């Protein structure tokens, strides 16, 4: 296979990693029935805090931990506001989106455009020698491998463990979950914070690996919204989150490849619009009646396969409150 292509695919995997981690985090949160809308701000704040911590302590590990704490704290605010104080999760999430972004910009103002520590490349010994696949998937920094693990662990935990049953049940029908002895609100806290911590880690994946350092405006501006859209496109399923994240990262690589190519003359600014166009198209595909209409005109054998790929039913109790008794 063309080396150039392999390099591009390698960078797609690397660039998609923050989207994968954030998407999985949000999937975990929303599966429990809570919406954390603040991703676009959370990612920026976590990235900044992760970078600054890593810079001042010279430890990427501490940087990642600090970023996770930042993400978890924002999620905690949403959980308290939504569960304890009965406020609209979307409203609080939106306010936090703006607040976290401004906080990142304000607190990070003295740390822009300085080099800092980054995550090391750790090719995985045997696996990286597999032709093509090894180069694409196993020649990365550790967070990429962590994202692989995350996908499978989340999928397995959600669909094949006892705790996964309770996790999904509180997002689908909290009254039923309560009747089976599940502490609905405690689980919602837990998964909201866990999801938030992963969003924080995704932020660190930008500032310590994918686009090292900190700048204003932050490089990941807009990616939080894309991650949120990926979760919908993915039908709240971890495998499809990965699909969505790679699709978006792939489109970006394609855009920059087009940009470099001398034959095609499309201004870079217009290419910047492509991910947003893709976001609208994918959401139209999986939302409302569009998907059913599309499925109806497909040949029968295809219908079933496409339905698993395109169906997107949100957790039935997403964004709602639950009061015991």
């Amino acid at each position: 296979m063309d080396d150039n292509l392999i390099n591009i695919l390698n960078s797609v995997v690397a660039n998609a990693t923050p989207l994968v981690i954030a998407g999985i985090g949000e999937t975990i949160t929303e599966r429990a029935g809570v919406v954390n809308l603040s991703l676009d701000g959370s990612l920026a704040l976590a990235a900044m805090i992760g970078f600054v911590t890593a810079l001042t302590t010279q430890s990427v590990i501490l940087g990642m931990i600090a970023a996770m704490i930042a993400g978890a704290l924002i999620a905690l605010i949403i959980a308290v506001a939504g569960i304890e104080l009965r406020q609209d999760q979307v409203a609080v999430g939106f306010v936090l989106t703006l607040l976290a972004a401004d906080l990142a910009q304000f607190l990070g103002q003295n740390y822009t455009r300085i080099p800092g520590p980054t995550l090391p490349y750790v090719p995985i010994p045997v696996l990286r020698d597999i032709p093509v696949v090894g180069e694409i998937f196993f020649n990365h920094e550790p967070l990429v491998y962590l994202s692989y693990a995350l996908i499978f662990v989340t999928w397995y935990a959600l669909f094949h463990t006892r705790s996964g049953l309770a996790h999904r049940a509180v997002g689908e029908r909290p009254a039923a979950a309560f009747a089976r002895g599940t502490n609905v609100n405690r689980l919602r806290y837990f998964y909201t914070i866990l999801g938030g911590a992963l969003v924080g880690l995704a932020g660190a994946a930008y500032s310590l690996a994918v686009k090292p350092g900190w700048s204003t405006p932050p490089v990941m501006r807009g990616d939080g919204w894309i991650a949120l859209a990926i979760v919908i496109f993915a039908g709240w399923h971890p495998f499809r989150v990965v699909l969505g994240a790679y699709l978006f990262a792939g489109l970006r690589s394609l855009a920059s490849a087009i940009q470099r190519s001398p034959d095609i003359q499309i201004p870079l600014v217009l290419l910047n619009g492509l991910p947003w166009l893709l976001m609208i198209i994918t959401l139209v595909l999986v939302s409302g009646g569009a998907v059913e209409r599309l499925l109806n005109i497909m040949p029968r054998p295809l219908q079933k396969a496409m339905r698993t790929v395109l169906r997107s039913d949100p957790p039935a109790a997403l964004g709602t409150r639950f009061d015991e008794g």
Partner: protein
Amino acid sequence: MDIELKHIHKRFGAVHANNDISLKVSAGHIVAVLGENGAGKSTLMKILSGYQPADSGEIWLDGKSAGSYRTPQGAISAGIGMLQQDPLDIPAFTVLENFVYGQNTGFLFSPRKWRERLKSISARLGFELDSDQPIAHLSIGQRQQLEIVRLLSMGVRTLILDEPTTGISAEQKLVLFKALRELAMHDHMSILLVSHKLEDVIALCDSVVVLRGGQLVGKLQMPATTDELVRLMFGQELAPHAHECLINPKIAINLDNVTLKGKRVTVENFSMKIRSCEVIGLAGLEESGQDLILRACVGLIKATRGQITVNSSDMTGKSYRDFLAGNVAFGAAGRLEEGLIAGLTLTEHIALTTENKTLVDWARATLVTDHKIKQYNVRGRPDSPIETLSGGNQQRLLMALMPDNPVLMALEQPTRGLDVDSARWIWQQLLERRAHGTAILFSSPDLDELVTYSDRIFVAYAGRIVEIPDATQTNIDELGRLIGGNFEKESAL
């Protein structure tokens, strides 16, 4: 399991829902708990099954105090499980997932082991459950069966069933009753049945307790007749509704050879004429096609084929708002969710339906509201937000929002969740409008209501429709058979 309730009290604000209720049920018995809506029977069952704590009183199980469990899970550990009218399962799960969720499975459960367990318990009770089916594809009857199997698997020794025969087929009812008898006789389980349906009580139960106004007012050993049960429940015998047929040749609505596509069922080539002053009942289990017909009559569902005429003008393909303009009224089954708007005042509701100019004349709207409040005896003020009204008053307002003399009123379950008095009031209103020429089309899960009020009944089963041309010539048994899909006798009608 022997159960003894001692002096149970429960208040909700000013309402004394359970007032000093003491009750004994011995192992192996099936006991019916009867009472009107608001009599306190659901509250009592919720207390017993851990969904609500009592204010005071004690529960003794097998001669020992059960202490105070405050959750359904606690009740199940104590041996008491409740099957809700709408089974509390998770629609997004498969049968197996629903079965194991909440059971003591360990972190990783072995699907094979639990599948076996599900199979063996259901086989014993004569239930047929496919462990890999999503719940969303099950009928209510099957979901009930799953809940029973699950509760048994968790070691429940007492089973409480809330209106279990609403919405299930005749066959499923037979299977259910057989299973319940088996559990009572061989496993010495005690079974409490909350039901409105006296024929079920007579068919199944060993004894009856009756609640009225939060108090235990009577006990009766079976067998007993319907009349005896009614007298206990209401304190008197109900005067039967006198059925009166009004003849009017004018056709209010005509469905001509229409095809209606729903999510799960399709009604094909269906024709129905409703004359002015007619009362037509629509019977059928959930999603059998009757809802499609009802909603097609008001333009909420478009026919993919055929023609719909209202008052001799063609309404095929027209929108719901066109039907409204054509003087057709619709009432949905949910009250606050579909029909009233929480956060809006009474006047705002009235203005929405009566003010047609660009500018709203609030003074006039308030006057109209005042008038309607008096006319329909609503307890509320023009500026009260709708959610501050009681359920009965909301129902009255809903009636006030309907046009005075519509061509057709299409009503989904017009008396759902109402007690006998309120239900009678609703029918009184409906029949009054009918006397002025309105045709009435209604659906109901209550066979009694269908037989009592309809001139004709259409029964839907899986998209197939049969007509009972004279409702006075049918009875609940026959209707029940048809609803269950047993159409063989239709030629004999």
